[in-house]
């Protein structure tokens, strides 16, 4: 792959701090927070469903750091007035708070070697689980708000196809995640079917023997990466109008892919 996808001018990373200071700071702190997490993982001899209890907070730290830094990057394509408004700053603050609360719970659950999700062992855990669900919707709604803002912003300086791909990616991340993760959280667990003996894909950890609802959730949540990358490719492929058409097609295809993996899991079938 040696297709030149990057624009001639590399994006200015300093703008992460000026456009989205809280999200950028959060992403860095989550990344550095992996150091004590890995140290705990190295020391902890306990087992949680076949893995270290610390695997889950580690995964979420990576995921949420990537999410936060992605939002911080896309913030530059919002209208400056929106970005600097008091409402947006408070909203971002609430989102950062939700992510921090989510991580604190994951650390606590790992420390107790109990389930952070689907935990109904104790009324307190069940209550925390519901609260975390609300926080999860709040933190995901940041991508919807940003997507709509970029959707309406006519002055991003981006090619139309690329701008559309970023807006659609952000909006789809919210819509598809709320559907897939919302359904997932209402189930007793993320597997559909039996027997679960533990055969799983490396790194991702998805089941290779039964349906795994996390596949659709993962793809849904990465729409904000997948579509803009497709948008970059599409703007290189043809004229402006063609690129817009390709991006709309890509968005439809992406939604179809998420739907397909969702239905596949509901039917108890593994991805691979």
């Amino acid at each position: 792959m040696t297709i030149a996808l990057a624009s001639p001018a590399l994006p200015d990373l300093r703008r992460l701090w000026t456009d989205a200071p809280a999200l950028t700071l959060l992403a860095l702190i989550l990344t550095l927070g992996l150091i004590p997490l890995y140290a705990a993982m190295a020391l902890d001899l306990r087992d949680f469903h076949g893995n270290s209890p610390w695997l889950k907070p580690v995964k979420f730290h990576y995921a949420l750091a990537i999410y936060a830094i992605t939002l911080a990057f896309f913030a530059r394509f919002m209208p400056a007035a929106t970005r600097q408004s008091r409402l947006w700053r408070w909203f971002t603050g609430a989102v950062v708070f939700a992510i921090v609360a989510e991580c604190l719970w994951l650390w606590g659950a790992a420390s107790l070697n109990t389930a952070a999700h689907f935990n109904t062992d104790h009324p307190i855990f069940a209550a925390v689980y519901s609260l975390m669900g609300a926080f999860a919707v709040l933190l995901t709604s940041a991508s919807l708000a940003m997507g709509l803002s970029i959707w309406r912003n006519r002055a991003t300086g981006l090619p139309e196809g690329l701008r559309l791909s970023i807006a659609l990616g952000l909006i789809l991340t919210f819509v598809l995640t709320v559907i897939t993760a919302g359904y997932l959280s209402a189930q007793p667990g993320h597997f559909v079917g039996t027997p679960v003996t533990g055969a799983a894909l490396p790194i991702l950890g998805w089941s290779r023997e039964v349906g795994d609802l996390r596949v659709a959730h993962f793809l849904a949540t990465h729409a904000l990466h997948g579509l803009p990358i497709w948008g970059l490719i599409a703007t290189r492929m043809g004229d402006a109008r063609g690129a817009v058409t390709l991006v709309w097609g890509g968005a439809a295809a992406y939604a179809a892919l998420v739907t397909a993996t969702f239905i596949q899991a509901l039917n108890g079938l593994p991805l691979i």
Partner: protein
Amino acid sequence: MPTDPHVLFAASGPLAMLGWLALALSPLAPRAAQIVAGLAIPAILSVAYAALILVHWADAPGGFGSLADVMALFTDPPVALAGWLHYLAFDLLIGAWIARTAQATGIPHLLILPCLALTFLFGPAGFLAFLILRAAFTARARMIGTPQ
């Protein structure tokens, strides 16, 4: 002067809490907070520590040679109390250092409150949390210049 370690222990908690309260409110009076939490209270605790060690070290079991030795050492109430005062004094010093460093590098006080709470409860964990926070601000300063 009470000599019962349990009585001294009960007195040491509120004294340390006073220092942590001063640090939590340090933006109101940074210099006073530094004098209280970074000097006066650690000094008082250190005097008590030194006295406990001078009086009780000779008769205490164990030592520093192995974990078993240290565990034996801490079975002795006056020495265990000295160990506790050591924590209280040095955690406060670290807390005062955190408040000072945050002020000097422009880290908002609200962000160090969790680090202070963590240092109060689990000393080195709070120190580590602040190192992480400071590293993020250092990265920011390197990228866009010093914070306003």
